[in-house]
């Protein structure tokens, strides 16, 4: 069998093998049982004492969300002002300039919401200080916020009736000290040994074989590359992200980074099963998500390895597949796999240029982000899937002749309303944003802006439409990857995607937490033969079907006008 494919399979199997025990550990750790990381307790206690936190004080869903939103707001302002003034701050050996207000608005939000929509290039756009104390810092805390919110969901389902979703501060702190930090240290060491820079020196210069002198950017990158994947953030140290040879030196580091980005989202699923003691439910969700991923991955790898029909028509052999925008050291299979993994997980780091993927592979990447719940981002993946579950529970419950209920709690008008709003919001943000961009492009192409709308797109036509649609899809999903043919560092894109990022992050967190808060308070209904069992395969398939149908129905027209039209046009 093709070694490229074997490489992909081995990577996936390793991910599952590592995620399972990690999930078990996460469940135990949050349940307060004895674990190997208990030595971190004094550090945590110190943090609690300094911050004046009582980690044992339970929170209801409103208090939980209030704490979460308050601290996130604080980080947003902190990040915004640091980026705005980075040129004058220390740790700037290359003398990089301040960010413009709209770019720092966009960048601060982007990393706050665990996204890496980078409208700048790491080498010249940020300093070592902001890389570390804004970007890397936010990569940690945004991932921990996601994990904490998922654990709130777990807490709501762990007990029959409760209004205590746990203490946000405690869960948040432990997510960093007990999960992210230890894993990052291990991964950073691996990265550093494989050639990723970890120094505070400025640019180095080398003389190439041709005799030219080239300046090479570097910096303390290894640690950031670890958290960018483990925290499913994806924001690269260098502009080329994980396609850059210093950010992702070889096939082995490529595997490590692939495993790292899926590790925590997958482990959270298993943790969910162990924590609420419904392992079968977690396995069914895991199965459905994996099937969903395969639906996207298999065709993508096939198309990428097949090569471009347009090039084939010119009579050019493509024995290595579609290599435009790809790194030779990874090849089309590993790049195709990465492109799907990074879009379903909401990482958004890239090891190939998505803009150059085959048209339908591009659609698969968009679908990954539109669904945003096949594994999904750190913690938030489960929250997104939960919204689909609520809709499935409601329709499925009616279909078996009972008022719908989820794990013993009745799902009624209020919960349906919230779930419906969250679903609606994505459709509104993505299509509304794209429509706005299309409107300006068509009707105000020559507007007197710094970058005229008519100059946004490298390739107009169907592919240009895909670029705009991808950008808003990526923002709403907090993914961060892009079809980089789009000229996006200007006020229009910085501001619109900034708002989409914010809403696309916090509404899909607030919604599920509110639902679980409402559900958990309700009287527990014991299961009977007439109850729809959510841990059955049939229910899993219903959820899967609803995900597919809902996504297809909401986004069919833009997908037709973008990738599908491009595909048929190339044929």
């Amino acid at each position, binding site marked *: 069998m093709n070694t490229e494919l074997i490489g992909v399979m081995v990577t996936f199997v390793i991910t599952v093998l590592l995620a399972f025990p990690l999930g078990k550990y996460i469940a135990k750790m949050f349940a307060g049982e004895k674990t190997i990381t208990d030595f971190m307790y004094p550090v945590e206690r110190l943090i609690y004492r300094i911050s004046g936190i009582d980690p044992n004080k339970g929170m209801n869903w409103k208090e939980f969300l209030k704490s979460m939103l308050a601290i996130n707001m604080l980080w947003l302002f902190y990040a915004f002002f640091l980026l705005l003034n980075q040129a004058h701050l220390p740790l700037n050996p290359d003398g990089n300039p301040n960010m413009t207000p709209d770019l720092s608005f966009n960048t601060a939000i982007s990393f706050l919401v665990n996204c890496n929509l980078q409208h700048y290039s790491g080498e010249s756009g940020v300093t070592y200080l902001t890389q570390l104390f804004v970007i890397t810092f936010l990569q940690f805390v945004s991932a921990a916020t996601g994990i904490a919110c998922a654990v709130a969901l777990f807490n709501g389902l762990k007990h029959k009736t409760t209004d205590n979703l746990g203490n946000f501060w405690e869960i948040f702190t432990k997510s960093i000290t007990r999960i992210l930090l230890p894993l990052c240290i291990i991964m950073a060491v691996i990265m550093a040994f494989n050639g990723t820079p970890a120094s505070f020196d400025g640019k180095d210069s080398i003389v190439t074989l041709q005799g030219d002198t080239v300046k090479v950017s570097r910096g303390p990158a290894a640690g950031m590359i670890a958290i960018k994947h483990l925290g499913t953030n994806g924001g690269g140290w260098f502009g080329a992200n994980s396609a850059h040879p210093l950010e992702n030196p070889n096939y082995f580091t490529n595997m490590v980074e692939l495993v790292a980005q899926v590790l925590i989202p997958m482990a959270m699923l298993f943790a969910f099963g162990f924590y609420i003691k419904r392992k079968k439910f977690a396995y069914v969700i895991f199965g459905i998500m994996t099937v969903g991923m395969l639906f996207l991955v298999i065709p993508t790898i096939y198309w990428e390895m097949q090569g471009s029909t347009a090039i084939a028509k010119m009579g050019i052999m493509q024995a290595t597949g579609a290599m435009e925008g790809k790194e030779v050291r990874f090849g089309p299979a590993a790049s195709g796999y990465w492109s799907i993994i990074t879009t379903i997980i909401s990482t958004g780091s890239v090891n190939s240029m998505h803009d150059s993927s085959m048209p339908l592979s591009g659609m698969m990447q968009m679908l990954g982000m539109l669904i945003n719940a096949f594994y999904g981002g750190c913690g938030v993946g489960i929250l997104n899937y939960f919204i689909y579950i609520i809709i499935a529970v409601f329709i*499925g419950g*009616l*279909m078996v002749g009972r008022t719908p209920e989820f794990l013993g709690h009745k799902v009624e*008008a209020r919960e349906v309303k919230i779930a419906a*709003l969250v679903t*609606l919001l994505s459709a509104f943000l993505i299509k*509304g944003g794209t429509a706005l961009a299309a409107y300006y492009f068509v009707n105000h192409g020559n507007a007197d802006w710094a970058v005229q709308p008519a100059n946004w797109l490298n390739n107009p036509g169907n592919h240009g439409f895909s670029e705009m649609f991808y950008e808003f899809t990526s923002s709403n999903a907090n993914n961060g990857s892009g079809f980089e043919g789009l000229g996006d560092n200007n006020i229009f894109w910085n501001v619109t995607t900034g708002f989409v990022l914010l809403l696309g992050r916090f509404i899909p967190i607030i919604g599920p937490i509110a639902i679980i808060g409402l559900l958990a308070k309700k009287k527990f209904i*014991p299961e009977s033969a007439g109850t729809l069992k959510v841990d059955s395969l049939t229910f899993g398939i219903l959820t899967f079907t609803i995900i597919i149908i809902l996504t297809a129905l909401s986004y069919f027209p833009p997908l037709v006008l973008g990738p599908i039209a491009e595909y048929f046009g190339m044929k």
Partner: protein
Amino acid sequence: MSIHKKNTKLFEGSLVSQALKQSFVKLKPAVMLKNPVMFTVYIGTIIMLGVCIWIAAGETSQGSLAYNLIIFGVLFITVLFANFAEAIAEARGKAQANSLRKTREDTPAKKIFPVGEMYVNEMKIVPSSELRKGDHFLCEAGDMIPMDGEIIKGIATIDESAITGESAPVIRESGGDKSSVTGGTKVLSDKIEVRVTTEPGESFLDKMIALVEGASRQKTPNEIALTILLASFTIIFLIVCVTLKPFADYANTPITIGAFVSLYVCLIPTTIGGLLSAIGIAGMDRALRANVITKSGKAVETAGDIDVLLLDKTGTITIGNRKATNFYPADGVDEKHFIKCTVLSSMADETPEGKSIIELAGINPLSYEIQNPRFIKFTAETRNSGIDYEQIKIRKGASDAIRNLAEKAGNIFPAETAERVKLISSNGGTPLVVAENDKILGVIELQDIIKPGISERFERLRKMGIKTVMVTGDNPLTAKFIAEKAGVDDFIAEAKPEDKMNYIKKEQSEGRLVAMMGDGTNDAPALAQADVGVAMNSGTAAAKEAGNMVDLDNDPTKLIEIVEIGKQLLMTRGTLTTFSIANDVAKYFAIVPALFITSIPALQALNIMQLHSPESAILSAVIFNAIIIPMLIPLALKGVAYKPIGAVALLRRNLIIYGLGGIIVPFIGIKLLDLVVALFI
């Protein structure tokens, strides 16, 4: 009576014409607004009318007038179809309720005018419509009871067949739990004085008619939640259509208003949106067809969620009375002789038990030619009964009573008889010992007869996930035995009214929903406490007031039917929602290629149905969208069949039929319509 034809035709001529008229009446915006999904179609129709006028005035960019007029017409019909679905459901419900109400209109009533203690009350015949709550009236043999009421004096046999369809007369008397009489029934014997318990127009039937007519109909909780979900789907599709305009501009594709409106109407869940209220009304109507009056739509819906069912033993699980099932002669006693003695002792026994003994023996007591019989009646003191003739004295009674007799006469109580007595008791039966001249002859076994087929019904309930609980006055041993034999899951023995109440509260505190049936005043608190309380029509006014349904048939097994009606109601909504949404897949494949084919010819590949032309594709899709509504009206009215095969299997079944079917059917339907439409374009 006609009302008992439970399967009246779905579309009766008179009802259809009435519903057709109502479909137009319901076009009033205020009425349309109640259904957000259909209201948007209504607006789409008006927009299309505007477009048609615009074209007539000379606009050329919107396609031909005929094409736009057809779209307008089809949308208008879509709205009418949805209105018709609601109207026909209302008409059927009303017709059903009216036929019940007719029986009690304008019956002459013998109203009593009290004139004080010393004089005889005056009585005057007035039309029943003049009776008010609290009035008294008199009914004698042959009279029709003019109004619902409670007997305050007297006892009478009453023919309730007009309401229940049951021809055997029933006894109603003052004071007890069977003091309620219903308007429209007929007194067969004796004389009763009745107090009117409801104002005219406020009887349960009147309330139900108001519910059906929509005046006081409120959306049930599940209906509200579903409406929210459907509204959000509608908004999602509105966003799809609105954003399509700039998308199309980007792709340099002009799209006509007609095409936008068609796409929108096809995508939004009009099928379920149009049928939603019809489904709810049909649920109440089906309950009424089962002779159950519901006081709210919510009660029917709740019935589908019931987890625990409280059933009275007598009449529900067992046939009214105990019956003799076996003769056990003592050792050394000839069986024939023993049976002869039991038959003779029961000759004058008028109790059902006594009769059942003769029935079991299969011998006519008169075939024994005996001289000078003297019958001994049962008294509470002796606790036995029997017959004396010639020199023979036969006694039959409770085992300890007969034992006393025998032992007093110096005879032994045989060990095997004692053994048998114990065995019968522990098997839930009642032993009767027979003695001849104070010598023990043997034992007759009386047993509760479990209704044939009842254990299958309990099995069915168990598969639905419903726990059945038997309520009985029997001792725990007997109760346990019958409970096991009938297949109920639990029982309350030696039950007092407060036991029922406590049981209901306990189950409810654990999160379960409880249904029960009752008739007595002392059942009223429990009926009120239960999530679904079904009062028997024969029961007291208090019981009827406390429950949220009234069963006209007084049939305790009716609860099972009610639960199924509730489940059907929810299922019909769920399956039609699924069907409606699944339909969209095919509609997209019909309309989207049609919109863009001229500017992006490569998209012809998406026209997988090979539809004739863009216009025919759009028309076929909207026509399909319209006619699917009336085609599903029968299903909405009858309800999706409930099968107790477990929730997961049921879900799988419905997903395949309505989910997969919902994807496939419109592909076929739209293609066929396109073949027809293509002939005209």
